[in-house]
C-alpha cells in the first residue's frame, strides 16, 4: 500500500468518480440553485502580463496561463476540465462531456457530450467537437501552407507534438448529435490519452464560427475538408503511423482558412468586446469589456449549463506593469484577489489586519526553468554540449535564489516532474532527493577547462581547443569563440530581476561567461521565445529567454513531457532533441499497467535530469495570493493555475467597488 503511487491514485480516483457521475447522469439531470449575491470581483493580472489572445486554438506565442487558464477558459470550456478542489485530477462535473469510454484494446474512444448549450441557446453538439478537430488537424498539419508572420503568428497549437494528438488519430466522426468516435493508430494508456490528448479538445461553436471572413457566410462545410485523413508520407518527417488531413485547406479556404480567420480576429484586441464571434460562449462568463492594455470585464453567461452558476455580477481582471504597482493597489484594498510580491511579504500582517486579506500560497503542478535556444546559429553549438549545460547549471545557485530573493519559499528544481503536491509519487527518487548538478563553481570551471575552454574569471572565456575529440570544445565551435550570450527576461517581477542579476554576476566572476541582460514584457518574451524554432527553421533572435514562470502541466496533465521535450514539439521552444529522450517519452504513452507507467516515467525524468534540456530554476508557488477573507469559493486555488470565478461569492468587503 505504501508503494501505491498517490498521484496515480488521484487520477484513478478521478476516473472512478467520473464514471460514477456518468452513471448518475444517466439517471437524470441535476440542477444547482442559482444565487444572486452580485458584486464585482477584481483580479490582478501578473506584472506586464495582460491577456492578448482569446481563441483557445493558440499557437506557442500565446499559449500561456494568462491567455488560457485565467482568461479564455472562463468563456470557452475544454471538453474535459482538469483540476478538482486543488487536486490534479479530472473534474467531470465541470466537463462538457462524460468520461471517455475506451474500447478495442484501448484503440478506440467514444465521447458522449452532456446536453449543454452555447450562450445563444443552441446545443453543444458532436459537430462542435469535430469542428475543433478539423481546425486543430489543419493547424498542426506539416503540409499546411505557412500562414502569419513571426510577429503575428498564424494559427497553431502550443501543445502540438509530432505524431501526437491529433496525428495519432486515424479518424474521428460524429455518431448522432451527442457522440464522437475516435479511432486511434494504436493501443494507448487510457490515463495518458485522457489526460494529455483528449484534454486538448475545446468544443467550438461551429454554427457561428465556421466562416472564412467576417462577411461570412457561416457554413458547416468550410472546415469539413480536413476531416478526411490519410497516413502521413515519410517526407513529412512525422513518426511512423501518423495521420494527417488529406486537405487541410489554405490560408483562405478550408479548415486552415477558418482557423486563420479566427486567428486574425483573435489578434485584433481592440474588437474583443464588440466582435459578435466572441459573444457565443459555453463557459460561465462572457466578455463585456476589454482594453488593449489588458483590462477585462466578464459578466455571467446566463445560459451556462454547468454548476454552480456565477453569483457575482461581474469578474474584472486588472493589468499592472510591475509587481510594485500591483502591491500598491493591494495596499489600497481595491482588489478582491491580488498577490503580494515576495519582497513585500513582511507586509502580510498589515494587509490582513487593515484590508481584510488572507494569504494563500498558490502552488501549481508545474516546473520552473528557462530554455536554451539550440537552434541559434551562434550559441546553439555551445548549448548542444552536455558538459557546457552541466557547467551552466552548476553556476545556478538555486539555494541562494530561494533564500535571498524568494523569502525562503520554494524548492530546488532538478528535473521535469513537479515536486508539488508534496511527495508527488511521479517524482523519481533521483529528482526528489537532491540536485543532480548542485551549485559548484569549481566543478563548473573544471568542466569548461577539461573541454578546451580558456577560462578567464571576470573576463571572457574563449574556446582554446576547437574540435570534436575528447577534451575539445565540440562540434561547430571555433577557436576563440566566446562564452557570451544574450538573455531576454520578463520585466516587472523583482524576484526574477534579482535572480538574473545574481546569475549574471556569478557566471562572469567565476567562469568568464558573459550574460547580456535585456528585459521585455511577458508577452513579448514568450512571442520571441515560442517562435517555432527548429533546426530546419532556426531562430537567431534569441539565445536564452526567461519569462519567469516555466510550465504548468496543462493540457498535458500527466507530466510525461511530450509537449515540452519531444523533438519538434511546439512548446519545446529551444528545440531540444535527443532520440533516447523521445523514446522514453513514447514509452510512457503505452505503459500497460500502473507499475510500468511509473517505471517509464522515472526513466524519462532521470534521463532529462541528467541531460539538462533546459536550465532548471527554483520551484516555488505560482503566486502568493492575497484574497479578501470574505470572498467565498476562492480556495482551494486551481492546481493547474485555473480559476473558478463562477464559484466566488462576495461577502462583506470582499468586492470593493472598482475605481472609475
Amino acid at each position, binding site marked *: 500500500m505504501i508503494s501505491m503511487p498517490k498521484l496515480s491514485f488521484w487520477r484513478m480516483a478521478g476516473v472512478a468518480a467520473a464514471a460514477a457521475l456518468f452513471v448518475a447522469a444517466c439517471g437524470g439531470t441535476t440542477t444547482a440553485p442559482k444565487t444572486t449575491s452580485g458584486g464585482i470581483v477584481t483580479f490582478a493580472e501578473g506584472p506586464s502580463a495582460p491577456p492578448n489572445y482569446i481563441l483557445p486554438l493558440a499557437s506557442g506565442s500565446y499559449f500561456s496561463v494568462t491567455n488560457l487558464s485565467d482568461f479564455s477558459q472562463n468563456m470557452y470550456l475544454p471538453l474535459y476540465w482538469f483540476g478538482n478542489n486543488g487536486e490534479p485530477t479530472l473534474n467531470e462535473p465541470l466537463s462538457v462531456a462524460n468520461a471517455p469510454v475506451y474500447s478495442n484494446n484501448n484503440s478506440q474512444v467514444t465521447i458522449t457530450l452532456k446536453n449543454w448549450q452555447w450562450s445563444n441557446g443552441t446545443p453543444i453538439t458532436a459537430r462542435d467537437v469535430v469542428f475543433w478537430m478539423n481546425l486543430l488537424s489543419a493547424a498542426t498539419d506539416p503540409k499546411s501552407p505557412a500562414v502569419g508572420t513571426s510577429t503575428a503568428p498564424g494559427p497553431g497549437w502550443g501543445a502540438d507534438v509530432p505524431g501526437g494528438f491529433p496525428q495519432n488519430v486515424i479518424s474521428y466522426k460524429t455518431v448522432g448529435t451527442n457522440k464522437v468516435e475516435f479511432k486511434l493508430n494504436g493501443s494507448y494508456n487510457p490515463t495518458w490519452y485522457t489526460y494529455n490528448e483528449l484534454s486538448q479538445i475545446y468544443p467550438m461553436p461551429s454554427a457561428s464560427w465556421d466562416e472564412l471572413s467576417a462577411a461570412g457566410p457561416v457554413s458547416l462545410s468550410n472546415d469539413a475538408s480536413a476531416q478526411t485523413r490519410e497516413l502521413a508520407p515519410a517526407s513529412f518527417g512525422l513518426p511512423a503511423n501518423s495521420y494527417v488531413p488529406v486537405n487541410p485547406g489554405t490560408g483562405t479556404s478550408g479548415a486552415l482558412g477558418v482557423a486563420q480567420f479566427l486567428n486574425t480576429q483573435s489578434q485584433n484586441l481592440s474588437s474583443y468586446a464588440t466582435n459578435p464571434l466572441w459573444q457565443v460562449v459555453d463557459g460561465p462568463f462572457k466578455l463585456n469589456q476589454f482594453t488593449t492594455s489588458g483590462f477585462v470585464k466578464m459578466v455571467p453567461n446566463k445560459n451556462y449549463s454547468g454548476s454552480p452558476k456565477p453569483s457575482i455580477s461581474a469578474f474584472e481582471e486588472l493589468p499592472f*506593469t*510591475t*509587481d*510594485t504597482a500591483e*502591491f500598491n493597489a493591494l*495596499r489600497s484594498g481595491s482588489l478582491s484577489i491580488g498577490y503580494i*510580491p515576495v*519582497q*513585500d511579504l*513582511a*507586509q502580510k500582517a498589515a494587509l490582513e489586519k487593515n484590508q481584510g486579506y488572507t494569504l494563500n500560497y498558490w502552488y501549481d503542478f508545474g516546473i520552473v526553468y528557462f530554455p536554451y535556444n539550440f537552434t541559434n546559429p551562434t550559441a546553439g553549438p555551445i548549448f548542444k554540449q552536455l558538459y557546457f549545460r552541466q557547467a551552466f547549471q552548476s553556476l545556478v545557485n538555486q539555494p*541562494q535564489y530561494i533564500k*535571498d*530573493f524568494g523569502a525562503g519559499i520554494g524548492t530546488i528544481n532538478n528535473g521535469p516532474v513537479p515536486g508539488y503536491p508534496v511527495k508527488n509519487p511521479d517524482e523519481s527518487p533521483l529528482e526528489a532527493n537532491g540536485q543532480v548538478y548542485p551549485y559548484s563553481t569549481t566543478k563548473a570551471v573544471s568542466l569548461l577547462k577539461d573541454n578546451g575552454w580558456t577560462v578567464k574569471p*571576470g573576463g571572457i572565456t574563449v574556446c582554446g581547443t576547437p574540435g570534436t575529440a575528447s577534451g575539445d570544445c565540440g562540434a561547430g565551435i571555433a577557436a576563440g569563440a566566446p562564452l557570451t550570450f544574450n538573455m531576454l527576461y520578463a*520585466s*516587472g517581477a*523583482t524576484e526574477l*530581476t*534579482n535572480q*538574473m*542579476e*545574481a546569475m*549574471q*554576476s*556569478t557566471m*562572469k*566572476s567565476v567562469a568568464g561567461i558573459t550574460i*547580456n*541582460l*535585456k*528585459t*521585455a514584457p511577458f508577452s513579448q518574451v514568450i512571442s520571441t521565445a515560442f517562435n517555432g524554432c527548429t533546426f530546419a527553421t532556426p531562430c537567431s533572435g534569441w539565445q536564452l529567454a526567461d519569462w519567469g514562470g516555466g510550465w504548468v502541466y496543462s493540457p498535458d496533465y500527466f507530466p510525461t513531457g511530450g509537449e515540452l521535450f519531444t523533438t519538434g514539439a511546439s512548446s519545446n521552444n529551444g528545440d531540444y532533441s535527443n532520440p533516447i529522450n523521445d523514446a522514453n517519452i513514447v514509452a510512457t504513452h503505452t505503459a500497460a499497467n500502473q507499475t510500468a507507467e511509473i517505471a517509464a516515467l522515472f526513466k524519462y525524468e532521470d534521463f532529462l535530469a541528467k541531460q539538462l534540456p533546459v536550465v532548471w530554476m527554483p520551484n516555488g508557488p505560482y503566486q502568493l495570493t492575497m484574497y479578501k477573507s470574505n470572498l467565498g469559493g476562492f480556495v482551494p486555488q486551481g492546481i493547474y493555475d485555473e480559476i473558478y470565478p463562477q464559484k466566488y461569492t462576495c461577502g462583506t468587503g470582499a468586492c470593493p467597488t472598482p475605481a472609475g
Partner: protein
Amino acid sequence: MIEDVRTELMPVAGGVGTAMPEGGEGYSSGSVWRLILAVFLENRLAIVGLGLIVFMVLFCFVGPLVYHTQQVFNNPNIANLPPSAHHPLGTDPVGYDMLGRLMLGGQSSLEIGFAAALIAVGIGVIWGATAGLAGGVVDAVMMRIVDALLAIPFLFALILLGAIFTTSIPELIIVIGLVAWLVPARLVRGETLSLRVREYVQAVRVMGGGSGRVLLRHIIPNTVGTIVVNATFQVADAIIFVATLSFLGIGVPPPATNWGGELSNGLSYFYDGYWWLIYPAGIAIVLTVVAFNFVGDAMRDALEVRLQQR
C-alpha cells in the same frame, strides 16, 4: 574672431529698449565676459548650483578612485544591509554597496545628460539656423517637421525608441539626443530670423559671403547665448529622461546602472523600510537637475542684455 563675438553677441538680445549699439562697440571682449561673470555671480542660487554640479562630478568620477567598491560582481549574501561603517549607504537587493552604486549610477546619468544635451543642441542649432536663414519653403517644411515631431508625446517617443534599440549608454545618448533637439531648433530658428536681417549679415552678403559663411561665422556664434542657456536645461532634462526610462525598465542593463534605475529598484522595497535604496538616488537626481536649472537661469540672466541693464 574675438571681434565677431564681441560685436555680434550684444545685438542678439539687444532688441527693444537697449542702448547698446548694434555691433557692440561699447565693450571690449574682456569686459563683456567680466560683465557676464559679474551678473552670474550676483545670483547666489547659481553659485549653489555650480557648486552642486562640481560636487556631483567629483563625487561620481573621482569618488570611485577614493572609495573602492565592487560594482561588477554582486554578492547576494549581503543584500539589503542598512547603512553601517562598512557600507555608509547600505547595500542593494543583490548586495552592491549603495554608495559605490550611487557613484556609478551618477557617472552614467551625467554622461548621458551631457552627451545627449550636446547632440540635441547640435542638431537643433544646425536645423534651426538653416531653416531660419533659408526662409521660405525650406523654412516652412523644416519647421513643420519640427512641429509634427513635437506633437508626438516625448515620453512615448522615448519609450518607443528605447524598446527598439538595445539599451546601453551610447544608445540612450543617441535616443534622447534624437528626441530632444526639437526645442533648441525652434529657439535657434527664432533667433536666426532676427539675426539674418541685421546689417552686418547683409554686409557679409554684399561682400560676397555665402550662406555657409553667414551661418557658421555670424548666425550661429550670435545665438550662443540662447544655445548655452538651453544646453544647461537640456542636460537637466536628459538626466530626468534617462531616469524616467530607467524607472520604466528601459534603462541601461545590469551591471551598469543609473540613478533612475536605482530609484526604480528601490521602490520595490519601499514598504520594507529600506530607505537607503530610495532616498540617495532620488536626492541625487533632484539636486543635480535643480543645480543645472539654477545655472541655466543665471546664465540666461547674465547673457540677457536687457537684464544686464537693470
